[in-house]
């Protein structure tokens, strides 16, 4: 995707349960360089990330963290893209035979199909999606994300009080995927696997149409990332019997990539390679790139593509 020349500086924030990461980037020679990358740990008990509950347990401590974040990132006030973990934002893939023309009607249809998941959310839910029509035109697949309105308001208000205007909110797994999307081939059945500190996620594409999504918290069962990937892949194959995966594209910390790729290939019996970031972002070997900040970079990058 070509970038439009937009604002001179873009900001992305990745919120995890134990830390907030912020990046600020500028475009130089056709590439985005995120020279400012700040990680501020959250004091224990400050946040309790969840889909349908109060998330900011200690607003004062959270406010102090944001002030520290701004101070270290040399920010007074700014607009930023926020990416939240899958504890807060739910992501799923839905299939529909066809879609109405108007976005409002699509919204109604999606909400109706999600009514079982969202009926207990009395104060409302925000829903966002991206559509992928199948090549034969018989169905439309949608990547759907939803978040409880009060939870979103909690974060947006807290950042606004600190002088940071949140302009987009996206799931961190998709923000991370967007950074590496260019590495995943458009043809065949390709699995993208994102291994972050807290989660391992998988998106399966069939000829560039997302068919399956699963994310797994890393602290649920003992084991390393290979075990988690194996678990998710087996789940994926159980859900899609007869499916053959042609290749796995893994996004993970660069230090572990070479070792892990061969380990995955041997263990899973599927060709594996590690994904590389988009050419429009600084290369992994560049000191301006850091995998830990990739979700924040992906979120920031999305501002320019709105």
């Amino acid at each position, binding site marked *: 995707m070509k970038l439009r020349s937009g604002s001179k500086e873009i900001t992305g924030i990745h919120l995890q349960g134990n830390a907030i990461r912020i990046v600020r980037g500028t475009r130089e020679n056709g590439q985005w360089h995120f020279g400012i990358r700040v990680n501020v740990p959250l004091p224990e008990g400050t946040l309790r990330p969840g889909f349908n509950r109060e998330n900011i347990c200690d607003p004062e401590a959270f406010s102090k963290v944001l002030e520290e974040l701004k101070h270290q990132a040399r920010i007074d006030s700014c607009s930023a893209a926020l990416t939240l973990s899958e504890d807060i934002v739910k992501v799923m893939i839905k299939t529909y035979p066809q879609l109405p023309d108007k976005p409002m009607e699509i919204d109604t249809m999606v909400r109706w199909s999600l009514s079982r998941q969202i009926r207990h959310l009395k104060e409302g839910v925000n829903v966002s999606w991206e559509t992928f029509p199948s090549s034969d035109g018989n169905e439309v697949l949608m990547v759907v994300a939803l978040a409880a309105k009060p939870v979103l308001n909690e974060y947006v208000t807290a950042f606004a009080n600190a002088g940071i205007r949140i302009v987009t*909110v*996206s799931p961190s797994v998709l923000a991370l*995927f967007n950074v590496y999307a260019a590495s995943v081939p458009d043809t065949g059945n390709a699995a993208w696997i994102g291994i972050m500190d807290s989660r391992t996620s998988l998106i399966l594409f069939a000829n560039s149409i997302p068919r399956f999504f699963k994310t797994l918290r890393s602290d649920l069962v003992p084991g390393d990332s290979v075990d988690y990937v194996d678990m998710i892949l087996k789940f994926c194959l159980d859900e899609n019997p007869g499916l053959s995966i042609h290749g796995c594209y893994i996004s993970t910390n660069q230090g572990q990539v070479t070792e892990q790729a061969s380990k995955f290939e041997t263990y899973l019996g599927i060709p594996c390679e590690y994904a590389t970031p988009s050419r429009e972002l600084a290369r992994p070997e560049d000191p301006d790139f850091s995998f830990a900040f990739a979700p924040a970079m992906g979120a920031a990058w999305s501002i320019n593509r709105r």
Partner: protein
Amino acid sequence: MKTIHINLLDTHKPSSAGTGILIGFLLILSTGITGFNIYTFSENQAMMHDYHKRLMNETRQLKPSPYHFSKEAADQVAAEIGYANSIIAENAFPWMSVMNAIELSLNPGITLTGARFTPRSETITLTGQASSASPVSELLKAIIAQPALNINSLRQESLPDVITFQVDIRMVNVYSD
């Protein structure tokens, strides 16, 4: 592979750009209407001013009336007209009073079959039918009770089922009011 764009702050309501365009259109429309109204108002004002100016000029050009009336003379003319009207009224036959008097004299059981008015002799001849003698008697009493009517004569014929009658009535004081 294409990237996936999700923004949970964009709730798929009509876009702000669309809303902006709509507001802009309405602003332009209202400005246009206001401008047109101001233009029309100023046009009307100019036209009114023109009419007023022409009217003033034409008023100045009018020749003075050759007749001069004093207030006393005008009052005298009004009094003369009132007197003439009263003479006309005195000589007019008071149809309404007479008709009202006859109508008041009629009672149930009476059917009028004819009425002939002779203003010169100031008489009215009523012919009719009654189911019995009693309603005719009531009619005569009612006519006598009317100050404007007197009975000159009565002819009555009793048939097996009905009584026919003819009453000649003379009008009195018909020009008094």
